[in-house]
């Protein structure tokens, strides 16, 4: 069946990463990647959670006397937007939604997709063919277009954005996990467990899952980057978070109207997205190196 439904860009990246990255890197440098990623992500989470302590302005407090102040203005480290709202405060509070999507959407689809793939691969037969045709079907749609269409029908809101991601994103995990399970099923340790008369759920969750989980966990890091970008994209298109609630994508979209005079409005929230995305990428790369080192 070759390449027709092979992989999303992120899956390919993950494969490329596991194949080529870190072949000649030392153990310390491998750990460095992981540590750097964790520190960056820790910083983002801390900044977002401690927002009330770090900034004294409310993200929605309007100051008509000081609109469009550039970064470095006394009292407004990153400047203000067209309504005089403090940009730093908006970036910090806005990150809460993007991080919630990165974790909330990714964890739910990781768990759901993994269980579906595990069961499909282990049980096989008609259930397996049905589920895998369903997966093929989702891969036939451009991911973003399908999510936009679902949000369009349900109505734009943060919860419906979660829902749309949950409906569509489990498929990648299901496909990866199924492939792993089909291989594991024929291996000695699974045959031994079956010969001992263990029940299927015990073999699936206590024997196969622990030995094969690394692939889906690595993919979830790539997926988290994708979900942050997706959350920002939907916000940008006006399909996720609704103003005046701050969110990085919404802020970029607002800022686009002022690029002729105030470049910082669109630039700074985007830098926050890139910083967070790179943090997840580094964690993923670092984990991949560590896990493969463990294999040898």
């Amino acid at each position, binding site marked *: 069946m*070759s390449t027709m439904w092979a992989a999303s860009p992120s899956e390919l990246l993950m494969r490329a990463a596991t194949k*080529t990255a870190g072949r000649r890197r030392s153990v310390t440098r491998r750990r460095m990647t992981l540590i750097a990623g964790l520190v960056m992500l820790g910083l983002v989470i801390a900044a977002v959670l401690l927002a009330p302590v770090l900034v004294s302005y409310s993200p929605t407090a309007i100051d008509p006397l000081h609109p469009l102040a550039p970064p470095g203005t006394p009292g407004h480290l990153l400047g203000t937007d067209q309504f005089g709202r403090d940009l730093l405060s908006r970036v910090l509070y806005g990150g809460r939604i993007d991080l919630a999507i990165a974790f909330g959407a990714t964890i739910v689809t990781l768990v759901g997709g993994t269980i579906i793939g595990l069961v499909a691969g282990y049980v096989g037969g008609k259930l397996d063919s049905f589920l895998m045709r369903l997966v093929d079907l989702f891969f036939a749609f*451009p991911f973003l*277009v399908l999510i936009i269409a679902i949000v369009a029908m349900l109505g734009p809101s943060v919860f419906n954005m979660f829902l749309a991601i949950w409906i569509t994103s489990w498929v990648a995990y299901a496909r990866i996990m199924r492939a792993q399970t089909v291989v594991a099923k024929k291996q000695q340790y699974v045959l031994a467990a079956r010969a001992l008369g263990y029940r299927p759920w015990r073999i699936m969750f206590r024997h196969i899952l622990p030995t094969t989980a690394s692939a889906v966990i690595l993919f979830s890091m790539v997926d988290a980057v994708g979900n942050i970008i997706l959350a920002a994209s939907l916000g940008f298109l006006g*399909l996720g978070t609704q103003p005046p609630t701050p969110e990085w994508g919404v802020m*970029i979209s607002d800022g686009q109207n002022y690029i002729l005079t105030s470049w910082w409005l669109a*630039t700074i929230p985007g830098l926050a997205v890139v910083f967070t995305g790179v943090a997840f990428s580094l964690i993923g790369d670092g984990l991949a190196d560590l896990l493969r080192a463990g294999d040898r």
Partner: protein
Amino acid sequence: MLPRRLVHLVIVLLGITLVTFGLLRLIPGDPALAILGSSYTHARAVAIDNFLGLNRPIWIQYGLFMGRLARGNLGFSFFYDLPASTVIAHHVAPTLFLVIYSAVLAAAISFPIGFGAGLRRGGVLDQSARVFFTLSFAMPAFWLGIILIIVFSVHLHVFPLNGFGSGFVGHLYNLFLPALTIALGFSTVLVRSLRAATIATLQAEFIDTAQMKGIPWSQVLWRHVFRNAVLAVVAVYGVNLAYLISGTVLVENVFALPGLGTLLVSSVADRDYPVVQGVTLLFAVLIVVINLLTDVVQAALDPRVGQEIGE
């Protein structure tokens, strides 16, 4: 080879129609009310109920949907007061142009970089490409587009802020920044694949054979390494077409291009459901068809692929 592929194709196409049909069922409440919006009258609501068959069993509704589809009827856009298919047809050209343009640009950017990085692993090109593409992987396409506008349009005045332009050269000029935005994002995947493929090909035995036959190294690189590495990337193109199209949807909105992506998003805001449904369907069918073409091209370029599929 063909019959199995065709059966699979028909199943996927049927599935796509099922999903698109199901989309309208996601609307909470009465679809007729939602579709009509502010142009609601009782007579029109009754007409829509009859058109969609809302008072009939669901399989009959699906049958009606398929029957209309076969005649190219996607429903009526009350927002534009035109058939949805007409509205969509007006917006196809910029999107197609942009997808092809960015695919070509992506090849122009990533072929030299990926090939060069694979030839000299750990070299300057390889290292800087790794850093650059790690960053661009975490970069939202729409944000990159805005940054390019700020740099090249607002400050350097090299390219227009937005618009589609007129004539072929005008399109090429106007769409350069949008296409570059998509191409940079897409290059991440291409460079990594091409680099990996180049490294793998360099280790193949036929490269040693070619060298031992006394073929000049430049010839070996061009005719053996590059050709084989590019073959691997043809597959990546087809598989990631969905990614290109997602990029197009976002970037069209950034640059205010009159394409399908802009239409899709504005139709969501206008609650123009038949147009949303039609655009989704069109994109999915486009992807399936181009995937098929990629497989055919691949089989034509590399006889081994054809045999593999034929199994």
